[in-house]
């Protein structure tokens, strides 16, 4: 927490941080991004930052689930799907009115309403998952929990994908844009208003989430459960309540990301696959269960994908992160931000 020390000791600490593995990686990523931007144009940085923010949200949720509940979730992408579906059905009935009258209050607020609805529905879906799937299993036995919960999430993912197909069909349900405002010229390219908003929403959510985790009583309880479940129980924390809250938060954030990116990723049964893979890249790069690391990891995975698409070609954007991951697993299996003593909010 830098603010406790003031600027005089902050700068040397920053210098010290830059020498650590995570610091060097971040520095390296920034240098690469700048070099690429100079070479190919500012859109590289813009694309990275816009999608990275949302991947960070999805990845942070996944890291939180792993850290607090010890679940390797493979159903996380389906909450992204739920979010995009909810946003589509809230937003699309009004799409003509909104795009024809962009300067009304209704048109400005409606996209936010759609995203908020997705956030809430994602949260509810998370609570249902906890109550209908994880809790009955936890009550039955804690034996082989990691493996069993992993298989459970995998099954749940297949179930939800097929439910989507049965009830909503396999067609793409997307929108062209949320806000019908002119694009903004920036760093030599045009950025649509939607992308800009997506970036701000992601930043706002990351900040709000970080404040919740680090500054509030409930956030401290979440971290406590992730570090020692018996310890948390001993001081009076209701473990079940915290686990339900964790799933609600994580799934809500994934759904929000799905809603916010609806103009890029239309709702269809397997839309969650990409975000799921991305969030797993993020979580492994950041170190399992490390939420702060996941926030940074989101941007790094996005950068990796943008660079791949630009210099190697479209279609390689999932291959390169995997290769990077393999190399990382060989040389630093604890992840770039992994440390010996850790919890969900490590720096």
């Amino acid at each position, binding site marked *: 927490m830098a603010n406790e020390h003031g600027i005089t000791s902050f700068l040397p600490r920053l210098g010290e941080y830059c020498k650590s593995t995570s610091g060097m990686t971040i520095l390296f990523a920034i240098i690469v991004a700048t070099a690429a931007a100079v070479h190919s144009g500012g859109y590289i940085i813009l694309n990275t930052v816009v999608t990275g923010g949302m991947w960070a949200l999805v990845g942070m949720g996944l890291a939180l689930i792993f850290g607090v509940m010890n679940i390797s979730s493979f159903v996380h992408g389906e909450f992204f799907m739920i979010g995009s579906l909810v946003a589509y059905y809230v937003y699309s009935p009004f799409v003509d009115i909104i795009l024809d009258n962009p300067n009304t209050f209704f048109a400005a607020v409606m996209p936010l309403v759609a995203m908020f609805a997705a956030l809430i529905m994602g949260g509810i879906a998370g609570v249902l998952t906890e109550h209908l799937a994880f809790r009955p299993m936890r009550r039955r036995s804690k034996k082989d929990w990691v493996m069993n919960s992993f298989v459970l999430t995998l099954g749940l993912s297949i179930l939800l994908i097929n439910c989507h197909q049965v009830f909503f069909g396999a067609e793409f349900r997307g929108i062209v844009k949320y806000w019908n405002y002119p694009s903004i010229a920036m760093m030599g390219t045009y950025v649509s208003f939607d992308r800009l908003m997506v970036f701000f929403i992601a930043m706002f959510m990351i900040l709000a989430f970080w404040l919740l985790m680090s500054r509030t009583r409930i956030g401290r309880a979440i971290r*406590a459960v992730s570090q020692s479940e018996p*310890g948390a129980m001993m001081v009076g924390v209701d473990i079940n309540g915290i686990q339900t809250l964790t799933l609600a938060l994580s799934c809500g954030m994934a759904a929000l990301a799905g809603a916010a990116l609806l103009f890029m990723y239309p709702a269809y049964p397997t839309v969650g696959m990409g975000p799921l893979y991305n969030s797993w890249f993020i979580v492994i790069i950041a170190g399992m269960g490390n939420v702060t690391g996941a926030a940074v990891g989101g941007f790094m995975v996005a950068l990796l994908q943008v660079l791949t698409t630009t210099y190697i070609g479209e279609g390689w954007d999932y291959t390169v992160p995997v290769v990077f991951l393999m190399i990382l697993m060989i040389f630093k299996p604890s992840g770039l931000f992994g440390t010996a003593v850790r919890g969900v909010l490590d720096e």
Partner: protein
Amino acid sequence: MLLQATDLNAGYGFLQILRDVSFHVNKGEYVCLVGPNGAGKSTTLKILAGMLKPMSGSVKFQGKDITGLPGNKVHRLGISYISEALDLFQSMSVKENLAMGAYTMKDKGVVEKRLEFVYELFPRLKEREKQLSGTMSGGERKMLAIGRGMMSDPSLILVDEPSMGLSPEMTNAVFNALGVLNEKGVTILLVEQNVTKSFKVSQRGYVLEHGKIVLQAPCAELAENAHVRKVFLGV
């Protein structure tokens, strides 16, 4: 009677550890539960703390039946449990760990007072306020665990093996602190393998062997008992 356990049977899976264990702790007492390795001392404490459900038997606290109540609810009734593993929050600072100890308390003024009380009890914790608990020495971690348990102002603390793995000086410091707490009116149920030390500090003792209470008496008497002297004290 503050705490009463009646005919506790408990174990893990098919392995039964405790057989019809009954004992009680009066208000303000300092009671120790001693016995050899594997006798079921820690298991008994786990049941009292709500960390393990007994197969049968009952636990009453202040006249209320708390058998099988989960640990977080037991804690809210005023029982603090300091486990053998300590179960600290490793990547939280000392201060944050203590703040977690006061999780169930809403009044900030009271929490502040409790924090001062704990710092007075263990000045070392104040010095280490910002250190992560996972990076502290064994004795400091033990102090922190006791301090965390004291934050909620419990009427009863259950302490599991406070001397384990500590240097003699650290052991003395921890036992001194427990003595101070007892003088201030906190009831203590202590589980120990260090029999000599336990008999010195506590008033009344139970001896647990193979999951059964075999002896109970004031500590002065226990220390003179032929069986105890032969088995535990080696004289």
